[in-house]
């Protein structure tokens, strides 16, 4: 059994359990090595959102799946940080309470990791110290503008970029 892998695995498993409980505001989760003696062993995920019994992963809701996957991502980043991480709409399925907890988790890690978040969600945007708006001109060409938080309007579910006066 590759002992470096074993060390990494147990560190990630520990971080995963903690990240899950933080992101869900409760509940428990574990990573399980199917066969600790095999160097081919698969890794199982047990996820139990707050108030629920342990159930097959497939029964989780769309938002619960996203958040569980993010907990695993957070665990991997904490054990072996990459200098930057680009996340494209990882918040698409999340309700507002989960968006808030995700945002806090990312802010806490942004001390050591540079995050680039593509999002439609105003709650997620509030984590950002820098904000870019992308728009499309009539030639199908993208244009990127530096924008301020007050230029975003949350209007029926997804953000919209507006010009502000003055």
């Amino acid at each position, binding site marked *: 059994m*590759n002992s470096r892998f074993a060390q990494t695995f147990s560190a990630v498993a520990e971080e995963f359990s903690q990240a899950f409980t933080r992101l869900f505001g409760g509940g428990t989760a574990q990573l399980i090595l199917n066969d600790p003696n095999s160097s081919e062993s*698969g890794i199982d995920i047990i996820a139990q959102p707050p108030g629920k019994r342990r159930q097959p992963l497939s029964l989780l809701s769309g938002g619960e799946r996203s958040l569980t996957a993010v907990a695993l991502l957070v665990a991997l980043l904490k054990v072996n940080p990459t200098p930057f991480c680009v996340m494209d709409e990882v918040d698409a399925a999340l309700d507002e309470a989960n968006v808030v907890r995700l945002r806090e988790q990312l802010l806490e890690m942004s001390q050591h990791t*540079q995050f*680039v978040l593509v999002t439609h969600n105003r709650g997620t*945007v509030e*984590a950002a110290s*820098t*904000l870019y*708006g*992308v728009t499309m001109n009539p030639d199908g060409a993208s244009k990127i503008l530096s924008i301020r938080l007050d230029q975003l309007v949350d209007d029926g579910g997804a953000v919209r970029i507006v010009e502000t006066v003055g």
Partner: protein
Amino acid sequence: MYLKRLEIQGFKTFANRTVIEFPLGVTAIVGPNGSGKSNVTDAIRWVLGEQSFSALRCRRTEDLIYSGGGKRAAQGMAEVALTIDNTDRTLPLDFNEVTIMRRSFRSGENEYFLNKNKVRLRDIQEATSPLASSYTLINQGLVDAALTLRPEERRSLFEDAA
């Protein structure tokens, strides 16, 4: 190590030369459907040496070059340059600042540069090997990929981290 700036010209919807500065901390990118947000993610992935067309949502090199639209003609080349602060020498190159640049032409030909020196793809891959983890770039729609993987496949995520 941290990202400093991304410069895009002719790649996908970036018909106009575009410069994105990346300060430390959290940067958010917003905008309407189809405006080019995921194309920015693709540009970063591509300049770091991605060779899988499906990871870039296309089928061939030509798809990566601005194909024209409205009254504007198609372009002949896609170019992306990523400038990185390397003071901590995370990348195995003896420079405080590293600029990785990639170009593609309609012929399918690719060119690679490190700090203006023409290099081969494998030099880029070697230079960026500390960044080659499967969780540096999370594509749209794939956040829960780790959950749909079979347990044996999941192992490779951990091998990246080990």
